[in-house]
């Protein structure tokens, strides 16, 4: 199976890169790992955190998409090869690449994230999605983990040349204003699969 695995790297900047995999890695929603401790028990995340010299700070796995954030200045092409190896090894292994999200201890993490999720979902329903709908777009709230919001864009937003402007100048700015407890936002969209982007890049 893993011999034909196709992985496409999409660096967002030197600190963050998406890896689109031709096979699903995790069917149970989104898993976000913010430390090697959190990754324990999930072979893929463990392997990515263990990449020498990368100083990985975050791994997010959703369906066939892996988002990796790192602190080191090592270029993605170097780190990316190791991430690719980790992905292939995880798919070739006999156990799930990542485990399901464990229940959080009472009073920590999960309850606060659940409350944030509700507020962010309300904001998306009442303001964000009506706005992007004008361009045929849709923004799906996937999860909130450790106050980090994960979204997936669809319709006219998926593959749109201005999707990052919508994310940063639109959605993130609204979150800062209305839900200031949110620490960050991560786009886990596979923009290469967008078949009807509202603004298609047209210049070389």
């Amino acid at each position: 199976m893993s011999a034909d695995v196709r992985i496409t790297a999409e660096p967002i900047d030197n600190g963050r890169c998406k890896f689109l995999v031709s096979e699903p890695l995790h069917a149970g929603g989104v898993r976000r790992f913010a430390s090697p401790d959190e990754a324990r028990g999930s072979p893929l995340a463990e392997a990515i955190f263990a990449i020498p010299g990368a100083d990985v700070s975050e791994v997010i796995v959703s369906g066939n998409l892996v988002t990796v954030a790192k602190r080191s200045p090592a270029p993605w092409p170097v780190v990316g090869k190791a991430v690719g190896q980790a992905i292939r090894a995880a798919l070739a292994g006999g156990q799930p690449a990542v485990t399901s999200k464990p229940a959080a201890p009472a009073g920590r993490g999960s309850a606060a994230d659940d409350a944030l999720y509700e507020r962010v979902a309300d904001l998306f329903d009442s303001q964000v999605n009506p706005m992007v709908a004008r361009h045929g777009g849709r923004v799906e709230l996937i999860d909130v983990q450790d106050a980090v919001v994960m979204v997936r864009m669809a319709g006219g937003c998926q593959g749109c040349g201005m999707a990052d402007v919508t994310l940063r100048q639109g959605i993130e700015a609204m979150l800062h204003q209305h839900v200031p407890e949110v620490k960050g936002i991560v786009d886990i969209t596979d923009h290469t699969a967008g078949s009807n982007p509202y603004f298609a890049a047209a210049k070389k």
Partner: protein
Amino acid sequence: MLRPSSPRLLLLLPTVTYRTVAFVEAARRLGADLTVASERPSTFERANPTGLVTLDFADPTHAAAQAREFARAHPVHGVVAVDDDTGVVAAAIAEALGLRGNPVAAAAAARDKYQQRQLLATAGLAVPRFELFTIAADPEKVASGVSYPCVLKPLRLSASRGVIRADTPAEFVAAFERIKRILDQTGCARSILVEEFVPGREVAVEGLVTQGALQVLALFDKPDPLDGPFFEETIYVTPSRLARTVQQEIAACAQATVHALGLRDGPIHAEVRHNDRGAWLIELAARPIGGRCSGALRFESRGAAGQMWEASLEEIIIRHALGMALPTLERERRASGVMMIPVPGAGVLRDVRGVGAAQAVPLVEEVVITMHSGQPLVPWPEGSRYPGFIFARGGTSEAVEAALRAAHARLEFLTEPAD
């Protein structure tokens, strides 16, 4: 949240650009307070009026007035453009707001191939013979009066769109009619520049101009011959393998062009040919390299304490516009290259196979397919859009070029005939 004292960057992003992520994320990394301006409104503009504005990119004077109005409430400290058209708008805004940038006349001349040729000739630079014709001219009559081989060019289209070489009067007439049809589709200036074909090896110069002085950031070889009849680009590799003295001639040619055009501050991207008569400026644009190609450039230095400082081209451009320190303008030591994947033929794209195999080629870092299934593939000269990009890095330019070619050979484009 950003500090209130963060410098505000006005980033001019046309809605059709590929450059959005690279520039937006670079501005965020630098802690700039970002305002994105486009020619069409974002649906979030009312929700974030300081972060999103609509400017009239078609009318630089009007856009500058709009920017001045905006800046009254939200002072702007720098303006950055990403393409030829917004380069003129940025110049108008820079003049209106007293920001670092190019004079409007210089940016406009850089955008217009005929004005550019005139200014270079006036400045005494080596230029091929050239003449401007309106599309109302009789091509057969014009064809009898030009020398061959020659190149016909629309004045303002980018990515060599509509640029055609003609070796005979019959080819000239066919090319003239073909460009007329392209101009009809695009609504561009209805004139055609005809100039003598300049043989020789072509290179691309990526540079940064500061108070009129050009700093060459990278010199890219273009190892595939660009002899026409069309001029679709393929591979860029740096460092150049040309002799040091030739590279110096090319840099001097680019600097002389910057001076002749009157460019003052900002990025430039120039195409220069070199033959036994010296360096010839083919075209210089007051903007950075296009498409995703900036991914082939990385700048780095090591601080006194051993810490590594690394920057993208976009970070350097933004730092320059905002007057921030530039720790280095030295490109990384490794060779680097990009292939603009050639359009495999006319049709509708259905699938691209072999991406994984292409990525597995040693030294290849990334294969990016930017076209989506269902989108039309339009070959040059009518087209201007590549289906994707391949990036590679390695010890030598030869190795990088070989890796790009090997990766491309593994790609298979599945298409259907267009309706």
